């Protein structure tokens, strides 16, 4: 194995401590509780902020799990590219399809 390989291999083994994992779990729980609480607040559900706030909270949870539990924050940039590339394509597909098919009538 070359020096470069050895350096890279060492780099990918850098992980958070169990205390960080515990805090991550706590934040994930609090955000989930917040999401469910917002669902039961009728004035907020009726407001235009409901969907953006829920999407923001969900994206935050997603990023926390990917960065800390999946170690993408600490891992090699190639892994980041392998994940974020398809993720961007996937999210663009969802947005494009919603723009294409939004405001159609009931069909089935």
């Amino acid at each position, binding site marked *: *194995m*070359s020096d*470069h*390989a*050895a*350096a*890279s*291999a060492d780099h*990918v*083994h850098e*992980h*958070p401590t*169990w205390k960080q*994992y*515990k805090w*991550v*779990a706590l934040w*994930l*729980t609090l955000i*989930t509780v917040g*999401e*469910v609480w*917002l*669902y039961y607040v009728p004035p907020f*559900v009726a407001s235009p902020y*409901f*969907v953006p706030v*829920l*999407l923001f*909270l*969900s994206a935050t*949870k*997603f990023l926390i*799990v*990917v960065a800390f*539990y*999946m170690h993408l924050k600490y891992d*090699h940039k*190639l*892994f980041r590219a*392998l*994940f974020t*590339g*398809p*993720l961007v*394509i*996937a*999210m663009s*597909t*969802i947005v494009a*399809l*919603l723009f294409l*098919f939004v405001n*159609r*009538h*009931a*069909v*089935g």
Partner: protein
Amino acid sequence: MASAVAHAPPEHAPHYTSTGLDHRKIAIWAFIGSECMLFASLISTYLVYKGRSVSCPRPHEVCTAADGRVFQPILNIPVTSQSTFVLLMSSLAMVLALAAVENKDKPRPANPTLGYRILSSSKLWLAMTALMGATFLGYQAYEFTSFVHEGLTIHTNLFGSSFFTLTGTHGTHVTVGVLWLLTLLAIDFKRGLTPKDALLVDICALYWHFVDVVWIAIFTLIYLIR
């Protein structure tokens, strides 16, 4: 032949590529990337069909069928919130299992505390992860059964078709993850997982966390957003 045998890698030798990274880890990330697109197609199908069902029941609205039967909103948010919490906590158990395997070669204190023994038990955390995954599947089985009893099947309407396809595909992934975890647990009981096996656990953990992040998206997009 003798040369081939001489150059055969030992059982636990890392399989480095020209990038300096193990090809198995590159493969799992590429697989996860492809899975992102699979779930994006299923989620976008659900969202495109959202609100277009002409027959009952529906996810968030009270619905009156042609025969006069009134259907209540079918999604059960309290139950799904509990299953979401269980799956999130299973990810914590999974990272603790990986940390336990990675730290097995570190010197143990002379008198380890109960907390230290708990944290350093890979068997415990692998079993906890599998148990929480199975609990999530139990919640999903309960949800599917109650939906069928309330009149929603995969054939009922667009909501039923897209909902069962999406959540069923996710449930299948969780089932595969649970089987994978039980396999690692069996290996741990049979010969013990060592730091040399950390990559095997890491790959399983990446798959498990991916299943978790997919559910994070599903929970918000399908269950919470009306």
